[in-house]
Structures are given as C-alpha cells and as structure tokens.
C-alpha cells in the first residue's frame, strides 16, 4: 500500500528524473520500508519522504529549466548558429484569426472528403465486374460490412472484405481442405470435415459470405458441426501486415535469424523478463516473472535466478503480469520444485519423454519448500500451465484471481495474408480432468484481488513457517 502511494508521489517528478532514477528511488523507499518497521520509524519515514519531496521537487524542475535556458547561450558562445524558438512577444491578433479559420476549414473538409471517397471505392470494385454474392443492390453492399462487424476499423476491413470474390472463396476452401487432411489430429474426422466443406461449397452456401470475416466464421461453423472441436478455427485477419507476422492468437510466426538476434538482445536488456527478485522478511523468496522466455536464450539467467533463491524458506512466484511463453521454460522452472520427475501436462503436445519435469535439479533445495503463485485475470497461457499443473499436483497454493483461460491448442497454418487456420495437431493426455483451463481459467486456492495477492501470500507463507 505505502509503496503504491510513494509510486504515485514519484510521478510528481519530471520525466527525465523518473526515467533515470525512478526505479532506484522506488528501491530505496522499499529498502527503508523493509528495515524501518513499527509505528514511529514508519512515521519518520513518511515525514522524511514528504520533506524530501518539498526540497527536491523544485530543484529538479529548476534543473530542467536551467538546462533549457543555458543551451542557446552556450551554443552562441561556441560561435555556432542558434535559433530562438521561444517568442517573448504575443502573436498578432490577425495571425491568430487566420490560424483559427485554417484549422476549422481543415477539420470541416476532413469528414466531407471521407464520405466522398468511401462510397466511390465500394462502387468502383463492384463496377469492375467482380461478383459480390447474389443480386443485391449496391447501397446494401456498401453497408453490409459495417453491419456485420461493428467493432472493426471500417477502412481496411471493408476494403479487404469487399474484394472477396468467388475465386478467393474457392481458394480458401481448397486450402482449408488440404490443411485439414494434412495436419488434423484425427484423419477420419479430417476427411469428414473436408467432405462437408466441399459439399457446402457445391451447394453454393458459401456465396452468402460477402467478406472475409463472414467466410471465416461460416467455414469454422461448418467444420465444428462435424467435429465439435472448439480448438479448430479458420480466422480472417483484416490487417495484412499483422497477419504475415503473427497468427490469429497473437503468437509470432517462425522467426527469421534477424528476429532471433533482435529478440535475444531485447531479452538480455530486459533481464529475460525476470522482473524482480527479492528477499522478503523471514527469508521468503519473491520472484516476479513476466513471461516464460526462450530457454535457449535465457537458461543461464533462469539458473542463476533459481540458484539465488535456493536458500529461501518459502517461495512466491508472481505471475500476475505473465502472459505466457515457452512451455520448455515453464517445465524447466517447475523442475526445481520437485525431488522426482512429475508428469507435466501440456495441452499443446503429445505425451513424450519431455512431458516429465527434469527433477530433481542438482543442488536444488526448493523441492520441499512451500510454494505460492500469485495470479491475476491477466495471467495467461504458459503461466496458466504453470499454475494448473502445480495446483493439480498440490505443490503450490494459488493466490489471486481466476486466470485468463487461454490454452490455445491449435497450431497456426497460414493460408494467405489474411486467412489462416488453427488446427489441433495433437491429442494431449490430461491426467486430471477432461477440461483444462481453456476458456475457464485456473481457479486460485485463495481468491483475493490481484493487488492484494502479494500481501495475502506473504501472510500465508509466514503462518505456515511459524507452524513448523
């Protein structure tokens, strides 16, 4: 709580100061708050902080100012040309009036131009002989995309949608059929679905889909009617640029060497998303992990982190801002928490030798230490896998909110720059129940608001340690 208040107070400082020293200042406050317990020390701490604010704030703003003022002076001294951008005179009334009139004209012209341009593109494409479904009058067509996907940005989506012609529909259906037969986990079902898709196509039912979104929805429905597989889907991504780099679920496609290098350096700068490692009172270890990064890049960091937490009495994993990552890293971190290999359920893979944790990890003393995992509604995907397995194995107490519910078991197959398919290629064995966390999330053992999770977990850990 007090940390949050101080974080708010820190915002009063100018941004250049916050960028350079915000974290350090926060750390110092945390250090003092940790060391100065009790009513009077706390009171003194806050008085210090307020006095500090009063003294240093004007100075910081003064510094920024003096730097601004000093800059042109020093430039002139060095003989370089300088420009005076800060006018001391007020602008003339005539200039203000002219500026106002110009801005208003520009603002007024913008919507007029837009409404002029928009119908023209719609009519233009239909006039060029492309068949847009059955005999509909063109004003209706112009409005159709809008009414079908209201929340979408109208420009790009509409442009992409309006271009959907019969050849395109045929191409998408053919690709879907081929992908299903090649990749779908159950060959027999795949054949049935492919037949159904072709039958619907033959009967002309797909012609009703005038745009990409509608076609994707329709084909998904046709496949699911046969297989009842909710992980199978055909998706349309309006933004072509985005579709070429990411799949429908936001996962990046196979990276290029350049991407990998970029990713590696970003990870190194980011401390591999090991956001915070702290020792709380009573030797309770705290690890805030914001993703499960690529094991091939971040293994040394993960090993060093876990080693630095090896002597704790209890360990808190803060996954409240963790949106997932690589299953290999999930199982790697979990390996430290067991003294023998445990089956580690992964909804995206067949059961193999890799499905067991690599426990015991040599030298790890964490196998018998209490584990708490902090969750929030943002905790997703790989982070949920961590939560789900530890909960099912009764190895951790989950504290916080129900997680987001994304298991994503389909593998993405790109059809073109807009269309793609998520196809389940494997049938994982879930030893616990039929359903995992897809769509429902992982329920915490102790349900509290995400912002209270740390405090609650720390209390729980302390109580447990005191009982020993």
């Amino acid at each position: 709580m007090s940390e949050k208040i101080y974080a708010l107070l820190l915002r009063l400082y100018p941004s250049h100061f916050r960028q350079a020293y915000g974290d350090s200042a926060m750390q110092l406050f945390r250090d003092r708050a940790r060391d100065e317990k009790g009513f009077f020390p706390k009171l003194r701490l806050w008085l210090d902080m307020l006095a500090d604010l009063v003294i240093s704030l004007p100075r910081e703003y003064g510094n920024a100012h003096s730097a601004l003022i000093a800059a042109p002076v020093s430039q002139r001294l060095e003989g370089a040309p300088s420009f005076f951008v800060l006018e001391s005179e007020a602008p003339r009334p005539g200039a203000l009036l002219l500026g106002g009139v110009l801005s208003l004209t520009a603002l007024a012209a913008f919507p007029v131009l837009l409404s002029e341009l928009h119908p023209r593109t719609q009519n233009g494409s239909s006039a060029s002989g492309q068949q847009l479904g059955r005999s509909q009058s063109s004003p209706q067509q112009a409005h159709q995309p809008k009414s079908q996907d209201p929340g979408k940005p109208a420009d790009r989506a509409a442009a992409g949608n309006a271009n959907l012609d019969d050849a395109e529909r045929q191409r998408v259906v053919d690709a879907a059929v081929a992908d299903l037969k090649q990749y779908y986990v159950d060959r027999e079902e795949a054949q049935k679905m492919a037949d159904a898709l072709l039958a619907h196509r033959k009967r002309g039912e797909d012609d009703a889909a005038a745009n990409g979104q509608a076609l994707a929805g329709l084909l998904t429905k046709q496949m699911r009617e046969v297989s009842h597989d909710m992980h199978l889907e055909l998706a349309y991504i309006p933004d072509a640029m985005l579709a070429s780099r990411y799949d429908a679920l936001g996962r990046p496609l196979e990276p290029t060497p350049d991407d990998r290098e970029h990713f590696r350096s970003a990870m190194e700068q980011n401390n591999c998303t090991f956001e915070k490692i702290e020792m709380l009172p009573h030797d309770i270890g705290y690890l805030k992990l914001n993703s499960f990064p690529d094991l091939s890049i971040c293994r040394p960091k993960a090993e060093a982190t876990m080693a630095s937490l090896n002597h704790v009495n209890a360990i808190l994993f803060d996954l409240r801002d963790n949106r997932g990552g690589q299953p290999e890293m999930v199982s790697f971190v979990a390996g430290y928490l067991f003294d023998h290999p445990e089956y580690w359920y992964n909804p995206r893979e067949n059961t193999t030798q890799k499905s067991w944790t690599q426990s015991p990890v040599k030298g790890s003393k964490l196998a018998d230490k209490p584990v708490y995992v902090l969750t929030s509604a943002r905790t997703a995907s790989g982070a949920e896998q961590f939560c789900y397995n530890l909960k099912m194995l009764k190895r951790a107490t989950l504290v916080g909110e129900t997680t987001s519910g994304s298991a994503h078991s389909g593998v993405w197959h790109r059809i073109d720059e807009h269309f793609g398919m998520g196809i389940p290629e494997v049938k994982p064995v879930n030893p616990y129940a039929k359903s995992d966390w897809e769509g429902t999330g992982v329920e915490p053992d102790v349900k509290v608001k995400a912002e209270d999770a740390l405090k609650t977990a720390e209390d729980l850990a302390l109580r447990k340690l005191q009982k020993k």
Partner: protein
Amino acid sequence: MPKRKLDPLPSAAFQILLALAGEDLHGYAIMRQVAQQTDGRMRLGPGTLYSSIQSLLEEKFIEELDARVDTKASPDRRRYYRLTSAGRKIARSEAERLADLLRVARTRKILRGDYV
C-alpha cells in the same frame, strides 16, 4: 559558461562524496552511511539523493559502476557509485574551506577548541 550546479557544493552532495570516500556504495547504502556519519541528523530522501547523484555524475565527481548483484542482502541489481579523483579533490577543498571557517569561528570565540 553557465553557472555550475555544484558551486558552492551543497551539503547533501558533500556528504555523499564523504560517504563514498571509504568504499563504493549503492543508493541505499549511501543514505545509511550519510545518516551514520551525521549521527542521524541527515537522512537523504530518494529525491534529494538521486538529484544530487545526478549532479555529481554530470560534474564527473562520481562515476557509476556496472550494475552488479548484491547477493548478501538481496539479489537485486543495484547501481553502485565510486568517487573519482576529481570528486576527491573537490571534497578535500570543501573540507579545507570548512576548516578555514572553523578557524575564523574560533578566533571570534564562537566555538571553543584547541585544534581544527
């Protein structure tokens, strides 16, 4: 030439230089060291501390060491600072200035004492 921020040297900056005279320290350790050497009279808050550190870095009186992990207290990455030779020089001249002041105070009988 614009006026230098640390001329005259503010007392917070002077105390930080003194704290770093012994060993390289991180922010919180500097704060504790300053509190110790002033018998608890000066407890630098984060704002004062880091704005002073910023000015000292700009004047090259101290330098920042590569971040390192302090495994003893907590495994966080902290920024450590070290006194430069210019910093040592300015701290010495400030101390001499104070010593002169002290001598004057003694001759005017404001302060008692045998030596500086």
